[in-house]
Structure formats: C-alpha cells, structure tokens
C-alpha cells in the first residue's frame, strides 16, 4: 500500500495535476482561467511522458565509455513537439479571450452567455 502511494509518486503528481487542470477547465467561469487550466492539464501529460521514459540510474543516451544504462530519449523528444503545440494552443486561446473581452466587455462565461442569448433572440 505504502509502496503504491509513495513508490509511484511521479504518477500521483501527474494525476493530481491532471485533475486540477481538468477541474479548472470545467468549473471556472473565467475564460482566461480556463486557458490556464488547460495548460496545467497539458503539462501533466508532458510529465507523464517524461517520467515513463526515465530509467533509474540511466543517463542520456550518448554512446560513451563506461555507461551501459540509458534513459529512453524518445518521450522527451515527443514532448518537445507537444510543448510547441501547447504553447500555440495557449497563445490562440488567450488571443481569443482578448478578442472576446473587446467584443463583449467581459471574460466571465455566464455574462458572455447572457449577452449571446440576447443576440440569438434578435437574430
């Protein structure tokens, strides 16, 4: 039991971050905070990839004298790509949030919704 809790601490961190981010996306009414939540959510996935690539005692996979145990470099590389994607998503999300604030005058989801309903009624 203790081993499950402490031994797998890296996975627990992943799960906690994941849930925190997910909760923020779902439950927060502020559009900027939702983007932050999404960011945390994605970060937890980055962590998951990197942690599964690590090998205890392993080093960077550069062939050299004296080292026989290497960490798997591939997940790190994949995550480099994913980080780029994540940054782009965040940038686009925030840009949209800025434009929404310019158009609607607010970033609170319920207020935006109310304004939208009024527009739907007019159309």
């Amino acid at each position, binding site marked *: 039991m203790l081993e499950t809790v402490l031994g797998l601490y890296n996975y627990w961190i992943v799960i906690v971050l994941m849930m925190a981010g997910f909760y923020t996306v779902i439950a927060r009414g502020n559009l900027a905070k939702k983007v932050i939540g999404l960011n945390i959510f994605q970060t937890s996935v980055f962590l998951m990839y990197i942690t599964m690539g690590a090998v205890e005692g392993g080093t960077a996979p550069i062939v050299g004298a004296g080292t026989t145990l290497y960490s798997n470099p591939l997940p790190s590389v994949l995550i480099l*790509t994913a980080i780029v994607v994540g940054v782009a998503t965040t940038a686009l999300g925030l840009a949209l949030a800025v434009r929404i604030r310019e158009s609607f005058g607010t970033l609170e989801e319920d207020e935006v919704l109310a304004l939208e309903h009024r527009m739907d009624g007019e159309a």
Partner: protein
Amino acid sequence: MPSLLSQNLPALQVVLPLIAAPLCLFLRPPKLAWLFALAVSGAAFAIAVALVGAVAANGAFNYEMGGWAAPWGIEYVIDPLDSFMLCLVTGIATLVLIYAGPSVEAEIPRGQIPVFYVLFLLCLTGLLGMVATGDVFNLFVFLEISSLSTYALVAMGRDPRALTAAYRYLILGSLGATFYVIGIGLLYMMTGTLNMEDLARRIPEVGETRTISVAIAFLAVGLALKLALFPLHKWLPGAYTHAPSVVTAFLAATATKVAIYVLVRIFFTVLGPIDAFQTLPAAMSETQVVSILAILAMLSGSAVAIFQYNLKRLFAYSSIAQVGYMILGISMASITGMTGGLVHMINHAMIKGAVFMALGAVILRIGACDIRRLDGLGYRMPVTMAAFVIAALSLIGVPGTSGFISKLYLVKGAMEAQNWVMVTAVLVSSLLAVIYIWRVLEVAYFRAAPADAPKVREAPLVMLAPLWILALANIYFGLETTYSVGLTEAAADFILNYVPGEGPTWEHPLFDDGHGYGADHGPGHGGGHVPEAEQGAHAPGVDL
C-alpha cells in the same frame, strides 16, 4: 524525373500545402491569394488522384519519411481507404476553394484574406497528414495543426459569437487532443512503439492489462470529442453556425469525417487485433455503449434541428445526427454495417458540402440564412435552391440520391445483426429529417416573397459551379455505386479482417539487453521507473 516524383507522392501530398501556406502571406491582393491557394489545392488533388492510381496498381504504399526505416522512422502508409480519403479531402477542398473567392471577399475583412488562405491550407495539411501518416504520435501533431487553424478560421466569422464559438471549440478540441495523447502515451508505455502496424503486432501480448483498457478509454473519449459524437458535440453547432460560410462548408464536409477515419483506424487496425471496439468500455462486452450514443445522436440531433431558425445551426444539428449514423454503422462491426458507416462518410461529405455551399450563397445575396427571412427564396435564387433541394433530398435518403445508399447499407447491417432498435432508429431519424427539411422547402417555395423584398441576383458562377458539382455527385453516387460502395466495402473488409503484416524483427542498437516485452513489464514496477519495457524504438517524433 517522373519516378522520383511518383516515389515521393505521399510526402508531397502533405508537404505541398504545408510549404505553400506561409507563401500566401506574401500575396496581398485577395484575388491572388485565392488563386494561389486554389492552385495548390488543385495540385494536391492531382497528387491524391495519382496516389489512388498507384495504390490500385501496386497495393498499399509505404513511404519512409527522411529515409528512416519503420518502425524507427515515421512511416506514411497509403492503403486503399487512405487514398480514397485523400481524394475526398483534397477534392472537397478544391471545390470549396473555387467557391471561396466571392464568399470570402464578402465575409472576411480585406486585410485578413491572405491569412485566411494561410489557415485554410494549414488546415488542409493537417487533415491530409492525419490520413497519410502511419504513426500515432505524428497523427496527433497533424490533428493539432488542423485543429488550431480551424479554431482561428472559425473565429474569423463576422459575428462576435464566432469568437466564443471558436473559444469553446478550442477548449473542448484541446481536451480531446490531449486525451488522445494520454491514450497513445499509455500504449507506448506498454509496447514501446508508435508505429501503427508495429503497435498492432505488439498489442495482443499486453491486451489484457488495465493500462491498455485505460488507454482505450482515453482514446475513445478524445476522438469522440473531435468527431462530435453525442454527448460530446457541444462545440459543433456554435462553430458551424458562426464560422464563415466557406469554413463551415469545408469543416462539415471533411473535418468530422477525418476524425471518424482516425477512430476507425485506431480502433479497428491499430487496436483491431484485441477487438478494442468491442470491449469499450471494459465493463460491457458488446458495442452497446457506442451504438446507444450513436442512436441518441441520430434522434436528438434530428429532433433539435426541427426547432432551429438559423439554417446553419439547423444543419449543424443535422450533422450531429449524421455523425450518429456513421458511428452506428461502424459500431455494428460487420462488413455491411462498416460499409454503411464509411459510405455515409463519403456521401455525407457531398451532402453537407452542397448544403452549406448553398447557404453560403444565400448569405452572400440575402445577408442571412434565418428561416424567417427566406420567404419565396426558391423563386428569388432558383439555381442555388434547386441544388439545395437535391442535397436536402439526399440528406433524407430519397432513393436515387447518395443518402439512400448509405441508409440501405445501414439498415441492412442492423437487420443482419437482428437489432431492431437500430433499424427503427435509422428510419425514425430519417423521418425527422423529412420534417426539418420540409420546413425549409415550404418557406422557400410555397410562401410568396414579401412585396418589398429587394430583387436579388443569383450567386456568381464560381460559387454555383462547385455547388452543382456536389449536388450532381449526390445523384451520381445514388445511382452508380461502383466507386463509393465498391471502395468502402473493400476498405471495410480490410479493416475488419486486419492482420498486421510481418514486421522486421528488430533489435534496438542502443537499448537491447535481451528482454522482451510482456504484460508483466507494465507500469507499476520498478519504483516509478518504467523498466526495460521502454526500449523505445522510435526515431525522434516530428518536429515542426
């Protein structure tokens, strides 16, 4: 150098629009950017046609990106289904781009038009890449390329609500994509590979583990979000309604289709050897959950559509229902059902492409597509509306149109499975479609135009031509199904009886220490470190 060209077709297919996209930025005059994008997409279509020929002649086309052999390198695999999907996507893209000129000039501010075409070509790149690639992580990258450009495209709509629609789409779409990444991460954890064929070979050894079950669940939810399967469809109506007309036509005809294609690819070929679709979710032994969701989508989507006033929104809800049809067919996991699902994917692309193109033409001339403002439209824009009627009949599934063929196979598949609920659901949902379509036609044809209605011209020829090509394609594929059904039936057979080929038995030059793979090496061993099971054998993921 025809041989060099023909050998590199799969790469060109994806790279061409990718390289062309930023070039649009330098073409400030809107007409120039439009023609350039059109030329690129036409070239992409030509490549896709050439690929169809090559695949038909020589079988599946494996292409090693950068000369790295699979499973180390990223492999592009073009099998018959892929080549057809590429043809469909590029063909629709070309038609939409022909149509785009006047519509974009009317709906997008002049300065943003080059950017619009940049995003459009990027979106096309992403969709093509998703189809062409044989690597699950590479697929994620292309998924995000297409998604990110789509969010921006949706946000270019005139109405401020386009912004919120794009925002919601971004949040949900990113969640879906991230779920997908979690899923493939877990798969990688257990198998050490990201190559689709290699995954299919290795997955049976670890198929029973809980990690794989969790991976399947994440993949299913992530992809369901992307393809707008009920109840994860919330982003779709807003995005379709407020996006520029051109974008709506393109998205409705291709984006969800490619997502469905990915679902089929992942669940029936990559995870096919362990019958992942049948064990979804692990608690149930049948495909009931997916079928039930599909049926709910069909019924609720059609029912909600009946009460819409904005026609774009109306047909967006109809799209949700139609996605239900496709997923229903796929969930039958029989040749007939799968054929029905896939053929409806093609047919629906033509139907909705035509419908939204017609609505775009209406918006161009009337300025809105609210049903309360369209009295007598059938006489004010007869050519546009005639094409609309054909597409609408096809949506109902009237015999002689392509929609009928899809329903024929879906119902037959359900009957073969003796699942009368499915049979009833398909038929009832078609009847609901009769209602919402009749509402539109009645207004357009049997209500006189208001006396003070300004006289409107027909849409310009560049918009009418692609619209009519799609409308006539609906009739052609309703009467002649050698290509549509023939191809999808072959694809269904291929997918359902997928056996991964004999891959190279390889040893990794760096990490080999003699250990094999197995369920006992799953996560949870080794104090937070994944042991030897992670002899990752994969060249660096794509860096863009």
